């Protein structure tokens, strides 16, 4: 019995962790489904939606644009030196384009926006939770999921693909700038190669990814903020958790989506 006791405690701890995880996941799924259902049911809050669109979309442009610009440039340099080992320097334009559009545009853009937007949504809703503003909404006959969560989910899901698309264009321009100024590519050859090898599926898949990432970003921010613990410490923890969970979910979802969209 005495030998088994620590094992029992250990197994019980694992069991508790699994139960908490399952319970937590179930609650999160329910939260997401409820909030999404409010997107389709009136009353709607267009003003709130517009405000979120500005904040999530418009104000994320500089971050996403700069990320894409430097990534495109670095990618061009890497592929040039890497490709040089097989005398394949000419693949630079197409690989930069495909890499940006299918993978790096949405993923890096998503991660940057996760840092910016998940955190600020979690901090905002967390503060509203802690100062009882969310309770006050309820007592004023306004469903917080409808008023706070649904507009943020919708705005992020719609804004992310647009941001990713702009990121794609800027990233390709970054590659182009490096290719032409540093690697000796002919400008028109560079652009032609890009156009020839890039397909609609490449672009489309990246935009689908971006939409999913946008949903994840808003969902994690809202979920963590909505369930924030009490006090300033609770809000701080909610903010950190939102960024970490959104980032990891984005990377995991990226792998799953890539498998689904481009099965090997």
């Amino acid at each position, binding site marked *: 019995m005495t030998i088994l006791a620590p094992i029992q405690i250990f197994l019980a701890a694992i069991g508790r962790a699994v139960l908490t995880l399952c319970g937590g996941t179930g609650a999160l799924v329910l939260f997401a489904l409820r909030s999404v259902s409010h997107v389709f049911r009136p*009353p709607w809050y267009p003003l709130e939606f517009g405000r979120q669109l500005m904040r999530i979309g418009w104000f994320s442009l500089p971050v996403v644009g700069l990320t894409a610009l430097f990534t495109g440039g670095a990618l061009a340099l890497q592929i040039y030196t890497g490709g040089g080992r097989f005398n394949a320097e000419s693949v630079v334009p197409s690989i930069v384009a495909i890499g940006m559009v299918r993978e790096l545009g949405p993923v890096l853009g998503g991660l940057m926006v996760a840092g910016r937007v998940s955190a600020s949504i979690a901090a905002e809703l967390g503060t509203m939770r802690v*100062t*009882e503003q969310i*309770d*006050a909404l*309820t*007592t*004023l*006959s306004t469903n917080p999921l409808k008023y706070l969560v649904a507009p943020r989910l919708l705005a992020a899901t719609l804004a992310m693909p647009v941001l990713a698309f702009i990121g794609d264009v800027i990233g390709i321009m970054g590659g182009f700038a490096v290719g032409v100024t540093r690697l000796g590519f002919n400008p028109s050859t560079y652009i032609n190669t890009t156009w020839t090898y890039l397909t609609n599926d490449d672009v489309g898949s990246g935009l689908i990814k971006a939409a999913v990432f946008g949903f994840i970003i808003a969902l994690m921010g809202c979920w963590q903020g909505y369930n924030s613990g009490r006090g300033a410490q609770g809000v701080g923890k909610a903010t950190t958790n939102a960024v970490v969970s959104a980032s990891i979910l984005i990377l995991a979802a990226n792998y799953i989506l890539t498998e689904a969209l481009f099965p090997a």
Partner: protein
Amino acid sequence: MTQTPMIRMSGVEKAFGSKTVLRGVDLEVAKGESLVIIGGSGTGKSVTLKCVLGIIHPDAGEIEIGGAPATRRNREALLSRFGMLFQGGALFDSMTVWENVAFRMRHGHGRLPRAQAREIAIEKLRRVGLTPETADLFPAELSGGMQKRVGLARAIATNPEIIFFDEPTTGLDPIMAGVINDLIRELVTEMGATAMTITHDMTSVRAIADRVAMIHEGKIRWQGDVEEMDRTDDPYVDQFIHGKAEGPIAAIR
């Protein structure tokens, strides 16, 4: 009490994790009556109000509003009959003062046009002693007493039948507290509303209450008319209303 009570709680229990807060609260408030709940901090006074509002779901027990049981399904309809002043004000800090006051009129079903809602909001602000100039300020620009008054104006904006005030005078200077007390008494009398107020300010109790209930260790320890409060020989009530350090209520909680 022959009339159906406006609010009836019976055997309401609530625990947060391993911490039991309410252990069976039984309480009735008659229509048009002003009940004040007293009790030490952290004894579950706010939780009691939030259970009635449906913001917190009790683990056990029943709550009836106007004779009908409050369920998750009819909660939204019930809430339109309630007004609530939160302990910390809970003003929406992204909105101006008048938008806060007019929130219910500007959102959801039967929303009013902007100009009309603003007019009503300014009227309500005047009712709680605030000038129209405050209407366009943000809550963060106001003093604590003014924030409380905006909270009051928001709570009464749509003339609710039932109003809850959670510590309306805590953190205010005695004069401002007096003003708020008088205001609450007037509003309740003039609107004929049923009121439940939480406070540990005995001046407030005497100014606002028709009836008093004391909560202790998750139950209603004592209740009765205000006049009876001073005559009761209940040692808990006696200790609380006279603020004695010695007595059955442990000072360390």
